[in-house]
């Protein structure tokens, strides 16, 4: 088993009309054992920028702390909040610095940026190769096939925030149901220019 599959976990982001949605499952486990069922994988950097981390939990925590360190210093020095696209490049650089001894994380960045609050999503592999998509991105090496399938089928562009919430919830819950190492509920954040709405979903508790 690959080290990236040890803890399981899944995270998904989708672009809607003037909004982005990001969701993750809540399971934290060590191979077959489930240790906790209240561990979300999505973290807020600022009101318009969220980071999702899948992969080895230990490295997720380390990299999250490093990201928070860098973004807080950025806000202090530059007197402005970091944009999602800039954060994506920052994380990419941070990961590539460890090219020959990498962090076993798969990050996902999403948010709104610019004066028009344009949606931005991106995902990376463990050494920082970025993937910029217009529709959706997903991370979590144990669920990729399942999630890709259902997202391709259910996703359509220009969904309003409420519709996007329905679509992303259905996709994530159905996808993690196919994976033994992810699930136990989900948390979904819908990010619009005025607010972030967060909801916790109860899925199959297995």
């Amino acid at each position, binding site marked *: 088993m690959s080290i990236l599959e040890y803890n399981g976990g899944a995270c998904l982001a989708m672009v809607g009309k003037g909004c982005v949605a990001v969701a993750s499952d809540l399971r934290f486990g060590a191979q077959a054992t489930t240790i906790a069922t209240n561990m979300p994988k999505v973290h807020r950097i600022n009101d318009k920028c969220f980071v999702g981390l899948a992969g080895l939990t230990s490295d997720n925590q380390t990299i999250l702390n490093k990201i928070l360190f860098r973004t807080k210093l950025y806000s202090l*020095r*530059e*007197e402005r909040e970091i*944009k999602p*696209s*800039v954060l994506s*490049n*920052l994380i990419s*650089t941070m990961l590539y610095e460890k090219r020959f001894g990498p962090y076993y994380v798969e990050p996902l960045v999403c948010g709104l940026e610019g004066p028009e609050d344009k949606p931005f999503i991106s995902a990376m592999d463990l050494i920082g190769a970025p993937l910029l998509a217009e529709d959706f991105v997903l991370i979590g090496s144990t669920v990729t096939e399942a999630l890709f399938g259902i997202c391709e089928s259910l996703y359509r562009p220009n969904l309003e925030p409420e519709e996007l919430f329905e679509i992303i919830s259905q996709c994530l819950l159905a996808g993690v149901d196919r994976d033994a190492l992810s699930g136990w509920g989900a948390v979904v954040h819908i990010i619009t220019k005025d607010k972030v709405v967060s909801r916790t979903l109860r899925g199959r508790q297995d």
Partner: protein
Amino acid sequence: MGESDYSFSLTTFSPSGKLIQIEYALSRVGKGDTSLAVKAKNGVVLATEKKVHSLVDETSVQKISYITNNIAVTYSGMAPDSRVLIRKGRKKAQKYFRTYHDPIPVAQLVKELAGVMQEFTQSGGVRPFGVSLLIAGYDDQGPQLYQVDPSGSYWAWKASAIGKNTVNAKTFLEKRYKEDMELEDAIHNAILTLKEGFEGEMNENNIEIGIIGEDRKFRTLTPSQVKDYLGELE
């Protein structure tokens, strides 16, 4: 103990609280050719004297240098010292871009360069830089102009002058500055101010003008463009 007894050491304060070496560095700046800059509401202009010996090929001398596409710098004082700072500034700007894939904000670049200049006032075996810099740029915060001194202090200015003619030039600029000045007016005022303190005849070969507008691309005017502006003065 007089002040001069402390002037040998950069890293020792004098009794009155000064670092005399920095004062001396400022004197060196005060002997340099005048440079000035004016910030307009839609851009910034840098203007500088370019006095060289008649046998020097003046097209090879560049007093206004680019740090990035949208940030440029001019100096008064020792040219070799300015080159070191420009080189460091360029590297820092690229390093920033390498990490963030976002162009460095003017204020950040200024802080970095000022930090470098400050390091050379608190280390052993070095001397302060013998230049003051005028840094002009246009980023998301709009047009900006900064001055950095050998001590590492920096200020944001609406218009400033450094070098030989700093006092008179600043007085002149103060009278003519308006908050909502357009870039063309700023260029006009910059050239007039430069002419005020110019010893000898000013022409398109012994001054250098650089401008940045809303397109955020810095460009140095060619001698023929400078000549056109000079013609408008008459």
